[in-house]
């Protein structure tokens, strides 16, 4: 047998082995295990703020760790920094390229970043008298779909070139490149302890990575289309994904498999974004059908809906203190609900 044939056979054997190992620990599913848990209350949230200011579709938003400021990105070519309490715009950052797909706030509150079809991640300093471009991170061979700061010195990016990368913001160079996906990387999320991150891609896989050594530690199967959104549960032991296949799924890291699927026969729109409440009990998922559905993460039941946008919900975010949920839409508005 040729070397290639031998390796293909070994690969198939290993996949079968992994599937069997997962089945061996699959003694129940989340919904059955949660049968004795009191159902989550019916969640009825009101729009507390409608943030108007963008002139085109909003593609991304991210909360600052102060639970008050947030950054949003629109294809009107601007990043806007909002004070969510007053509803006022605090800053506007004009972008060199208006084809923005992602934005992020650094944990310190000093920096924001954005990127998109320009294949670059641009970092801005908000604290200088005039907002300055600090770095243009230019090495990806495809669009920038997502970025997240680890600190003022390091940022993680996900790209349409199928790779994720960790960058040093002093040198502007990639420290580590994460290779394994075979489709465009669409989203990433940092683990609560900052030692690992999870990525979702158009190959319909979610992958868990060690940030420091670049190793892909686990691969999660189940979705049948692009994974557009991903988030860690606050416990750090599970992740939730949202996909173009119209479902969200929770994968438990220690059981190494899907443990529950959030789906409804009546839902046939893709999931664009998701965010979890502070306890991890509620999943806020934004859909192409203009709504944000609220799921009980343990029981898999829909417990509410946020209706109010006139176009696709493209981004959602819950601040660290869990006090509200923000939705951003192609209708150019952001809404704050609680």
């Amino acid at each position: 047998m040729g070397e290639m044939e031998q390796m293909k056979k070994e690969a198939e054997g290993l996949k079968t082995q992994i599937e069997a190992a997962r089945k061996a620990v699959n003694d129940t599913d989340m919904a059955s295990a949660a049968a004795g848990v009191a159902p989550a209350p019916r969640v009825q949230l009101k729009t507390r703020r409608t943030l108007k200011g963008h002139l085109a579709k909003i593609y991304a938003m991210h909360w600052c760790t102060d639970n008050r400021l947030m950054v949003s990105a629109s294809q009107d070519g601007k990043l806007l920094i909002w004070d969510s309490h007053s509803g006022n715009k605090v800053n506007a950052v004009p972008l060199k390229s208006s084809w923005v797909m992602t934005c992020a706030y650094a944990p310190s509150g000093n920096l924001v970043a954005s990127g998109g079809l320009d294949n670059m991640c641009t970092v801005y300093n908000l604290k200088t008298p005039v907002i300055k471009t600090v770095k243009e991170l230019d090495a990806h061979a495809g669009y920038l779909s997502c970025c997240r700061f680890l600190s003022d010195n390091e940022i993680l990016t996900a790209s349409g070139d199928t790779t994720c990368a960790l960058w040093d913001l002093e040198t502007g160079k990639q420290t580590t490149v994460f290779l394994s996906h075979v489709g465009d990387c669409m989203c990433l999320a940092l683990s609560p302890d900052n030692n690992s991150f999870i990525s979702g891609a158009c190959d319909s896989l979610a992958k868990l990575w060690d940030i420091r050594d670049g190793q892909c530690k686990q691969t999660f199967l189940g979705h049948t289309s692009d994974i557009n959104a991903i988030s860690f549960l606050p416990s750090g032991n599970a992740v939730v994904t949202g996909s173009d296949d119209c479902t969200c799924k929770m994968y438990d890291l220690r059981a190494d498999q899907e443990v529950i699927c959030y789906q409804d026969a009546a839902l046939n729109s893709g999931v664009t974004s998701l965010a979890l409440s502070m306890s991890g009990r509620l999943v806020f998922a934004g859909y192409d059908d203009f709504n944000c559905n609220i799921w009980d993460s343990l029981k898999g039941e829909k417990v509410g809906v946020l209706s109010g946008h006139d176009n696709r919900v493209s981004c959602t975010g819950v601040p660290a203190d869990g006090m509200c949920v923000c939705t951003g839409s192609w209708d150019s508005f952001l809404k704050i609900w609680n």
Partner: protein
Amino acid sequence: MSGSSSIVTMKKVVQQLRFEANINRVKVSQAAAELQQFCIQNAVQDPLLTGVSSSTNPFRTQKVCSFL
């Protein structure tokens, strides 16, 4: 040569699968129990679950003061 680069790629795929095959897996029942415990323990502190009283809500609708 395209032949040898696809062998290199395939070697990496096999290496990755070997790594993933070797991890320890916990029973779903145990993982589910711990997830439930986490959610329930933190439920009291979850404002979106318990509701936010208007006195402590930083996003409460701003009321206009009027002189009578």
